[in-house]
């Protein structure tokens, strides 16, 4: 094979605002790693980012098959980005299956970077191609860049001590090098990462090989004539100074809860049972024993939730994490938390339902379950995070409300937030909202169900405190004393207290922000992970001069009074959701609003700008 010849001409560099790339290959090709490295390097270069990994549903799908394709999408920009994007500018195909799986996501005229070394007869056959699509004209609407990455990597690493199989595994760094050249990226952060990752124990030869592959890929970009030019996506202006890190939603929830526990000055307890896509929160927290985090992998969701109730009774910041079907099982324990008036946070990483549904896909259909899914009058505050990194602050907010009002709080995220990542400015502890914990300690004044005048919270009196021995439980409590009471009027009064306590939270939360004007023709109202796609849509429509605003809800229950007021100020309110209109129903109930239009699309995928745009334009007439 021919070595590309060096060019003397300077390559032209084009400035771009935003690029969306998806790295795709077999699940053994290291695409998640490649994508993450590209993301981190872009972040360090000052881009804003949004990423979305897509793993195969099968644990070990056969190599080279469409089912075994793993993808990592990143949108990086010199402006703010809210979503990983609808359509791809670039698809990196490490094998034919990756092309087959994702070609339909590439925008017309987009770039396909193809590892021609994998487009062998065998590879094509496993992917289900009869002809090589690169040669049969079917890709004429795209710019195809063919590079034999397999062979070039082998050539670059021929002098190393690695076996051919080990050399083949370095393809992803070669590819990364090519892309670093294309997008004018610095190699150093990845070289540092490689050096750190393969430190000691005879792993230096892998460090050397990977670094060599990365540099060779980059050099190939410089020298090969197949590129028309390189691109530059500049750094963002007006970024808040500070230390940044990239977080996905699951990690953000875990870190947010650790931060909340530190802020509250009490240790964190997690009782959990593995379930996709929430398991990673359990994994993350299990690593954090040096932060005094106690994790308990229970025998099932019921035990997980119950252990949380026990830990809260005992004075820890108590957490359980789950996904839809798990929340269903935790229902009774959460009800116990409501009547026992103990603080606890329940995180539900929503996935496609009902039942087992689409376990690896995203949905927003547990809103009703969260707000209403308990027996009896059992109000529980419900929050939703809007972006991967914002899961951190949403977790802190959930803990704040739980402790201040002595109540279970449900925090909703979803599969898309859980896996997607974006930059996060690391806050100091003092920047986080106050979480005051004062355990009761005075036997002279203690009553288990006395209430704080302002919040109506009862005191948190934990075992081990002399003189405060008391009994609580699921039977109705007598006002103040907490004794068991079947008195009809007392019951009415107690459920009244518990309802009022939750209602008062509405005055202790931030009003939802409005992006755009306070009144007008159309308001697009969302909650949870659709924030980004709605923001992108609204921005585009406003650029076209249309009267459109966005309002986004973090607090679903109770809701801020401003929500009802704002609904009235728009001719129409469009409510896009990844369900069949649950927020829409809720708003009709709460505010008797009749100018709502539901846009429910539940395909197990994030909404697309195009979906919302079409509906909005229809409503704007």
């Amino acid at each position, binding site marked *: 094979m021919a070595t590309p010849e060096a060019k003397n001409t300077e390559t032209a560099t084009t400035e771009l605002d935003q690029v969306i790339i998806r790295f795709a290959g077999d699940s053994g090709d290291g695409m998640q790693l490649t994508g993450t490295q590209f993301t981190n390097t872009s*972040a*360090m270069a*000052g881009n804003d980012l949004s990423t979305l990994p897509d793993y195969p549903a099968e644990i070990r799908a056969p190599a080279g098959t469409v089912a075994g394709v793993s993808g990592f999408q990143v949108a990086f920009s010199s402006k703010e980005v809210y979503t990983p994007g609808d359509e791809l500018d670039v698809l990196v195909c490490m094998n034919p299956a990756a092309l087959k799986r994702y070609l339909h996501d590439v925008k017309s005229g987009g770039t396909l970077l193809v590892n021609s070394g994998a487009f062998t007869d065998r590879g094509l056959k496993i992917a289900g191609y009869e002809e090589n699509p690169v040669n049969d004209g079917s890709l004429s609407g795209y710019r195809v860049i063919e590079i034999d990455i397999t062979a070039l990597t082998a050539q670059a690493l021929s002098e190393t001590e690695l076996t051919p199989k080990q050399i083949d595994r370095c393809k992803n760094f070669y590819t990364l090098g090519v892309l670093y050249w294309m997008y004018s990226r610095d190699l150093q952060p990845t070289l540092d*990462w490689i050096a750190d990752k393969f430190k000691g124990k005879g792993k230096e030869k892998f460090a050397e090989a990977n670094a060599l592959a990365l540099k060779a890929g980059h050099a190939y970009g410089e020298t090969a004539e197949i590129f028309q030019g390189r691109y530059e996506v500049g750094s963002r202006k007006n970024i*808040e*100074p*500070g*230390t940044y*890190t*990239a977080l996905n939603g699951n990690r953000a929830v875990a870190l947010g809860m*650790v*931060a909340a526990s530190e802020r509250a000055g009490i*240790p964190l*307890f997690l*009782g959990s049972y593995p379930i996709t896509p929430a398991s990673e929160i359990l994994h993350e927290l299990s690593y*954090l*024993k*040096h*932060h*005094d985090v*106690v994790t*308990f992998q*229970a*025998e*099932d969701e*019921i*035990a*997980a939730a*119950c*252990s*949380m*109730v*026990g*830990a*809260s*009774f*005992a*004075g*820890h910041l*108590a957490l359980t994490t789950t996904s839809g079907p798990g929340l269903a099982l935790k229902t*009774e*324990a959460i*009800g*116990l938390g409501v009547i*026992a008036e103990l603080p606890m946070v329940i995180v539900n990483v929503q996935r496609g339902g009902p039942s087992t549904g689409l376990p690896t896909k995203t949905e927003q259909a547990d809103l009703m379950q969260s707000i209403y899914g308990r027996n009896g009058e059992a109000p529980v505050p419900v929050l939703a995070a809007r972006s991967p990194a914002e899961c951190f602050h949403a977790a802190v907010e959930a803990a704040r409300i739980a402790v201040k009002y002595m109540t279970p709080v449900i925090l909703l995220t979803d599969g898309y937030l859980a896996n997607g990542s974006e930059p996060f400015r*690391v*806050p*100091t*502890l003092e920047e986080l909202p106050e979480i005051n914990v004062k355990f009761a300690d005075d036997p002279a004044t203690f009553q288990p169900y006395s209430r704080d005048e302002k919040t109506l919270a009862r005191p948190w009196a934990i*075992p*081990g405190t*002399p003189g405060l*021995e*008391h*009994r*609580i*439980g*699921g*039977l109705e409590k007598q006002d103040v004393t907490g*004794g068991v009471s079947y008195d009809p009027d007392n019951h009415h009064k107690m459920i009244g207290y518990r309802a009022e306590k939750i209602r008062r939270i509405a005055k202790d939360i931030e009003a939802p922000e409005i992006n755009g004007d306070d009144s007008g023709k159309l308001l697009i109202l969302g909650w949870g992970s659709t924030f980004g796609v709605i923001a992108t849509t609204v921005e585009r429509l406003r650029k076209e001069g249309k009267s459109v605003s966005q309002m986004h809800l973090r607090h679903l229950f109770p809701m801020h009074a401003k929500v009802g007021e704002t609904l009235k100020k728009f001719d129409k309110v469009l409510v896009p959701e990844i369900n069949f209109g649950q927020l829409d129903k809720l708003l009709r109930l709460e505010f008797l609003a009749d100018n709502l239009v539901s846009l429910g699309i539940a395909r197990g995928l994030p909404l697309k700008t195009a979906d919302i745009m079409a509906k909005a334009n229809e409503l704007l007439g």
Partner: protein
Amino acid sequence: MTSTATTDTPVKLTKKDFDAGIDVRWCPGCGDFAILAAVQRTLPELPYKKEDYVFVSGIGCSSRFPYYMATYGFHTIHGRAPAIAMGVKATRPELSVWVATGDGDALSIGGNHFIHTLRRNPDINILLFNNRIYGLTKGQYSPTSETGKKTKSSPLGSIDHPFNPVSVALGAEGTFIARVVDRDAKHVSEILKAAALHKGTSFMEIYQNCLIFNDGAYNHMTERSVKAENVLYLEEGKPLLFGEKNEKGIVLDELGQPKAVRVEDVGIDAILKHDPKSPDPSYAFMLSRMGLDGVLPTPVGIFRAVERPTYEDMLHKQIADAKPDGKKADLHDLLTSGSSWTIS
């Protein structure tokens, strides 16, 4: 306020200190009363402060137990007390945590939590009040009711095969497993104390008479005239003897099955000696099967008492080991771990 000299000697607690002083609402004559009295009598003898006791229960007549104890108490949801107690003990190992549960509560709806708690071995004391019936819901058959039992929900006789709680607990490899009968007050107190002092999960099955829905279920073990023939007291290192004058004993037959013999026929040395410390639970399991056929006596006392590290000790050791300098790690370091970058 008058100053009193502080002293390190704790005030000696009495039974009365553990009486919550409210009306006990069990049916007069219910076996639960005797168990309550035994627990209140035993706690003052244990090395805990009053404020360190926590009683957690599920749902059922027996699960009203915490209300009557002047300790910290949590009456929770049906079958889940062990899981809630687990959360208490995992976070606060210094507390003395107790679970009060019934046969329906622990073995039907709570079967899963019951076995997993025993498997993990937290230092929790589980008291299972076994009346072989659902009391609170007014008399349906329970997972320990005998096959053929006629109740409101089994008018033609129950077709379920019953659980033997001691066998189940042994199957889960619990480290302390005992059985007592509610009427046998002194024995209950003695075993309770041993259970409480055991480091690890202690499980006590308490045969409890529900005089409303299953009266007399244990008459063969409590009535003077037949008790000696039907009850075998397990005592460590002592031969397995029973009968009015301890004239009968247990030996193993050729198949290794227990068999009743007259001591004078075989000699006392041939009689099996009780060893609750046997690491293998099979011996205790064999004992747990005695009495089911109505031929052999039913053993009471400690079936098994072995040492195994407790869940919370291992848990907190991991936490301590994760902090080599004993200090909690820094939050900022955690938040910037992985890759981070600074924008100024």
